[in-house]
């Protein structure tokens, strides 16, 4: 079971060969967008990079560098202002295994000078990246990010279990899976699946912060979740609802609990602390953790993608699939019609993942949905 990919200088295997323009700070965002538009490169812009408290800044830095050093990235131009907390030169020095350049707007004489310099550097980077050759690698080179959002009744019954079956197939082939959205209600099931005591402690510590936040807010989690809409839709208990969400990562042992944008250090299933509930924050963090592709089950339908990774959009509801046809890649509705079993659907989804790894474009790629967002936490 093989895929076609690009070997990077640092040993990683990419399934795309993007040229990325990375803004280090919000002040550089517009110029980054202008240069990227002219070069047909991928702009990475955000509202951060300066005036951040240390822990917050470190997380922003980890997400930005995780994106620049992502296996799907063939070359990087770092675009900075010149006086920000994350200097462009320092950020560029930490990009490894692929061609990288940087510019600072204040040293380029403003917008027109920076755009001209950016085009000059960017053209050379694009040509350097274009010389990377695809080669054959085992499917074990893949890391998959799994995500769900806008859940409906079919999410927990069909699309998440089918995605879980595909996740198990990838793990069995030696690949890795990054699962976020680790929420309350199935603490014990995660605990049972932790690979060792240290991982279990990390998972419980993460969940305890959520229990504590609910307690401080005076909220009984079991009384407010499932929501009235969930209850009308047939969900009775918090455990039942949470299992429907946890299913998407499969059934394997949990190898570790990662911080946002943390990288798995081996194969298997990894959990990640992700920012919710807005979907793009979590996808950005999981992709920055090195996932070359994303599988996103959406009940209600959602057009969002990711900056440097294809997003396979899955739904289990024929109405949603047909209603937003150009945004979906995979229809799992045959499970709810009783025409396909969950394992069979999972196998079909796994084959689709391999096809996407081999270069088949996903809907978000075709339509230019390259969302990227980092959450601001502390005030600086």
């Amino acid at each position, binding site marked *: 079971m093989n895929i076609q990919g690009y070997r990077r200088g640092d040993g990683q295997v990419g399934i795309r060969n993007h040229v990325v323009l990375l803004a280090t700070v919000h002040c550089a965002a517009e110029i980054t967008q202008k240069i990227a538009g002219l070069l047909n490169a991928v702009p990475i812009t955000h509202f951060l990079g300066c005036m951040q408290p240390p822990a917050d800044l470190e997380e922003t830095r980890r997400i930005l560098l995780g994106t620049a050093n992502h296996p799907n990235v063939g070359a990087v131009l770092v675009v900075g202002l010149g006086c920000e907390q994350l200097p462009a030169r320092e950020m560029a020095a930490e990009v490894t295994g692929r061609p990288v350049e940087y510019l600072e707007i204040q040293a380029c004489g403003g917008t027109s000078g920076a755009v001209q310099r950016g085009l000059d550097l960017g053209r050379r980077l694009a040509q350097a990246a274009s010389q990377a050759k695809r080669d054959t690698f085992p499917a074990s080179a893949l890391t998959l990010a799994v995500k769900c959002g806008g859940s409906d009744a*079919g999410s927990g019954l069909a699309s998440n279990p089918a995605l879980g079956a595909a996740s198990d197939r990838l793990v069995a082939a030696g690949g890795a899976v990054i699962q976020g959205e680790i929420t309350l209600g199935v603490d014990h*099931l995660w605990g049972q699946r932790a690979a060792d005591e240290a991982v279990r402690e990390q998972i419980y510590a993460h969940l305890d912060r959520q229990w504590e936040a609910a307690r401080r807010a005076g909220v009984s989690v079991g009384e407010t979740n499932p929501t009235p809409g969930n209850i009308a839709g*047939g969900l009775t208990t918090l455990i039942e609802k949470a*299992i429907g969400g946890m*299913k998407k990562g499969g059934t394997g042992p949990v190898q570790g609990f990662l911080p946002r944008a943390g990288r798995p250090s081996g194969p298997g299933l990894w959990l990640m602390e992700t920012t919710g509930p807005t979907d793009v924050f979590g996808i950005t963090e999981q992709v920055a953790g090195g996932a070359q592709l994303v599988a996103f089950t959406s009940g209600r339908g959602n057009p969002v993608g990711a900056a440097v990774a294809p997003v396979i959009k899955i739904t289990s509801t024929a109405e949603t699939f047909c209603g937003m046809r150009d945004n979906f890649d995979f229809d799992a509705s045959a499970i709810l019609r*009783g*025409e396909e079993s969950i394992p069979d659907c999972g196998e079909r989804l796994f084959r689709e993942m391999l096809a996407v790894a081999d270069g088949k474009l996903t809907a978000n790629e075709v339509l230019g949905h390259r969302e990227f967002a980092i959450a601001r936490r502390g005030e600086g």
Partner: protein
Amino acid sequence: MAEPPHPEASPEGSGAPPGRRLALLLDERDNVATALVDLARGTRVPVGGLEVELRADIPFAHKFALRPIAAGEAVVKYGETIGLATAAIQPGDHVHRHNLDHRVESIIFRMREATGASGPQGAMAKPAGGEE
């Protein structure tokens, strides 16, 4: 893809399109199944090797019992306990808030402790608003 009709396809008179499967069994350990269409009381539903006659209308995505479940016994879906029955449940009964206790924090905490990790921290010893 011409496939033979599913062995659990809709029987005649069920109101569902012919050949359509009526219910989903997510794990063979489960004592409930999930309706794949709105099902009327009295429908005989083939699922999990059984045939269950529904004792209530079961809306799409709602659960019904496959076997007798005693009050206090675990309701099992996805192969896991999702809560405890608050009343005796007969095969074919609708299983929802009226006979399945949604206050599950104590189950979660008890099963957490059973995984052998450090005991519950202050945060979880007393979930706010719960009756545990």
